[in-house]
């Protein structure tokens, strides 16, 4: 198996008359930079030199050596002492270090909600939480919701109402719904509460559920059943 040589080849796009000079030069730069950084990266790996940050685009990166931190993650009732690269997100620590792969990596940028876990009882995006930030906190993942063989009521409701298709977003949806129900118990508001004028203790209508679950995307489009599951769980009629 062989790859084309990673040289700074002329790209046809550079010869095209630039309608929007800035845009096309951006593309040119992007491709060239990629090729260059890729080669430099390859060289750095080959020589074992930790030069990545300075090599990328010359910005000021004093620290080029990975930094580690010792921390304790309390996950689903069990404490784990870990020493991790500070860059490790809570999501990666759960999945890669603790092999709790229920929490999913979707976008890795806080836009899809597949990574949702509960930290000290509150739903958060574990992909935008550094593991070190969660040091000492109580973390609950999808693996920690059931009590033995007894499903959490929200899990049971998702089964009963078929609140998924492929299932990839489901752990995040369920953790998010658990957080939602707890928030609602504390009489929290949503933007829908202001639109409807129910700003004291809003009933969990379908519109309220949709708004409060909007941080969890489902590419299969199982939303009607997800709403039904959350509605059922909120009324305590899970199955």
């Amino acid at each position: 198996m062989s790859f084309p040589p990673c040289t700074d080849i002329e790209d046809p796009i550079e010869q095209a008359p630039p309608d929007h000079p800035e845009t096309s030069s951006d593309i040119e730069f992007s491709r060239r930079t990629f090729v260059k950084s890729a080669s430099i990266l390859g060289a750095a790996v080959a020589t074992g030199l930790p030069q990545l940050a300075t090599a990328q685009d010359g910005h000021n990166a004093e620290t080029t050596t990975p930094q580690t931190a010792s921390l304790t993650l309390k996950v689903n009732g069990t404490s784990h002492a870990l020493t991790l690269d500070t860059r490790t997100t809570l999501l990666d620590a759960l999945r890669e270090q603790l092999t709790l792969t229920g929490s999913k990596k979707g976008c890795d940028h806080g836009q899809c909600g597949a990574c949702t876990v509960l930290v000290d009882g509150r739903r958060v995006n574990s992909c935008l939480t550094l593991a070190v930030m969660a040091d000492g906190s109580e973390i609950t993942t999808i693996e920690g919701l059931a009590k033995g063989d007894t499903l959490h009521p929200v899990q049971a409701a998702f089964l009963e109402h078929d609140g998924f298709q492929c299932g990839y977003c489901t752990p995040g949806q369920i953790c998010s719904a658990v957080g939602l129900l707890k928030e609602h118990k504390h009489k929290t508001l949503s933007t829908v509460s202001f639109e409807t004028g129910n700003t004291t203790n809003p009933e969990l209508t379908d519109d309220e559920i949709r708004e409060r679950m909007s941080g969890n995307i489902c590419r299969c489009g199982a939303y009607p059943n997800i709403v039904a599951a959350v509605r059922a769980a909120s009324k305590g009629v899970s199955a």
Partner: protein
Amino acid sequence: MNPFSYQRATSPDQAIQAVSAPGTKFLGGGTNLIDLMKYNVEHPTKLIDVTHVGFDQIAATSTTTIIGAGVRNSDLANHDTIRTNYPLLSQALLSGASAQLRNMATTGGNLMQRTRCYYFMDTAFIHCNKRTPGSGCSAIHGFNRIHAILGASGGDTGSQCIATNPSDMSVALAALNATIHVTGPKGKRTIPIGDFHRLPGTTPQLDTNLNPDELITAVELPTPKFAKHSYYLKVRDRQSYAFALVSVAAGLEMDGNTIKSAGLALGGVAHKPWRSADAEKSLVGSTPGPEAFQRAANFAVSGADPHKDNAFKVELAKQSIVRALTLAAQGVQA
């Protein structure tokens, strides 16, 4: 993401001392900073976590309310005092992001949010005066549907910037005339919300007038005036979990059927929350209604300078202002 060291500060003094090292940044909820670090837009070499320094309280006196900089957006939105006295702020906060992100994001961090300009967030584009000063602006001749129509820098290519501030909270704070409390090596100072964020001018790399070694400690809200008549209207491409194309924070203080005072600020239209003193002034002494509201709307967007894809924002902003003021005048429905 480049390597960095992490320190959890336990006091403001410790945090300020730690941030003096070059390449150091404060870390709040992380929802924006860590995201930008993953994109290699931000590359601090040291993070000082300031969520454990004791800024997690909301204190109300008879005249003011002081919000600790570490208060999470969800806690702030649902705090009794805020819901009762400053519903505009609650509504704005709950219009932003998702429940998960609001559980993480802090008050201080929200004030420090950086723009969502695609050309800023994607390092494949080399021309971004905000990310790389002097490199140019790809947005001005690019896809600029989400960009600024007011207050952009019109200077040479090396300083142009049409980025917008993405915060909803800050728009409400502008209409509410909040004050930002900060502390640094030279001591404490306060910054009126109108002077906290800045227009790009010739230095679009700077979003705020906060010095890099200063820490936001609190946000102060003045005596509530708009508790009975306020509305935050957010217009976006989807109904939830999206940034504003245009948003309006409107507050009215009524004296019978006459407007005694008004707070009006726009989001999604400029490099900072766009508060129009002329628009607010035009409302004072008026009777609430389409005539007064349209006049205010015209004042608010006066001087608008739209680009290829965002001319619609001028009319959208005007109509949104009229609608937000109309809903504010109708008053609390609960």
